[in-house]
């Protein structure tokens, strides 16, 4: 089955990102295709590489990056939601005159059309949120 995943909540505050990660990992290991993981609302905060959890805790951001590296996952962060919440890549830094970037490897910032396209292209859209 071809799946699209939507993550609507930030890391650590809420279970949504953990559940989405475990679901996505399990689906991939079962041989399903994940067309895209789309991060929206506070879910965009899952993509900052500046995240520094305590050493004995899971690293939610790095975990997504590693899963993407293993499975060539498409991790897309909504641009409008990212701009509001200070998630910045090279392109956004240049466009908006910011002095730094913070996007983690394997994540990319793009538009809401990517979510709609994923919903159209996939057999199921699975939403993780509050």
């Amino acid at each position, binding site marked *: 089955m071809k799946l699209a995943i939507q993550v609507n909540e930030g890391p650590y505050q809420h279970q949504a990102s953990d559940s989405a990660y475990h679901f996505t990992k399990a689906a991939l290991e079962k041989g399903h295709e994940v067309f895209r993981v789309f991060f929206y609302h506070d879910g965009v905060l899952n993509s900052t590489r500046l995240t520094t959890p305590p050493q004995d805790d899971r690293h939610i951001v790095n975990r997504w990056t590693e899963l993407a590296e293993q499975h060539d996952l498409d991790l897309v962060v909504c641009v409008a939601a990212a701009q509001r919440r200070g998630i910045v890549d090279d392109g956004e830094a240049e466009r908006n005159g910011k002095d730094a970037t913070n996007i983690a490897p394997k994540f990319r910032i793009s538009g*809401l059309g990517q979510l709609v396209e994923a919903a159209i292209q996939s057999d199921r859209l699975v939403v993780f949120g509050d």
Partner: protein
Amino acid sequence: MSEVKNFMYLNRRAPYGTIYAWESLEVVLIGAAFDQKVSLMFVDDGVYQLVKGSDTSTSDMKNFMPTYRTLGDYGVRHMYVDQASLAARGLTADDLIQVEWEDWETEEEIDNIVEVVDADSVAKLMSESDVVFSF
């Protein structure tokens, strides 16, 4: 992309207090470009999104109520409201805004695409949807 799907945007939150309602609207507006069959469903505190006469002038929030009135121009064909959610909050259909819809090609007009539906219809409409965006 020739395939047309039944999209449902499920709105469960009050319009202000959290950003869910506004960012849900942003998906609806962008999604219009994809020419899918689009309906919105309002349940729980989401019904407050359509209550008329909202005034944000003292809360420093942008009032996005006018955006709902334009949704007919963004390909939205139905805006369903859960009857039980309305009743639980002391609201009736009279408290809700009306949203007009017009097909520019056929000139077909509908005065109001906002429709109050019962729980069975909510479940049926949801199960008939190919995609449910939950906000």
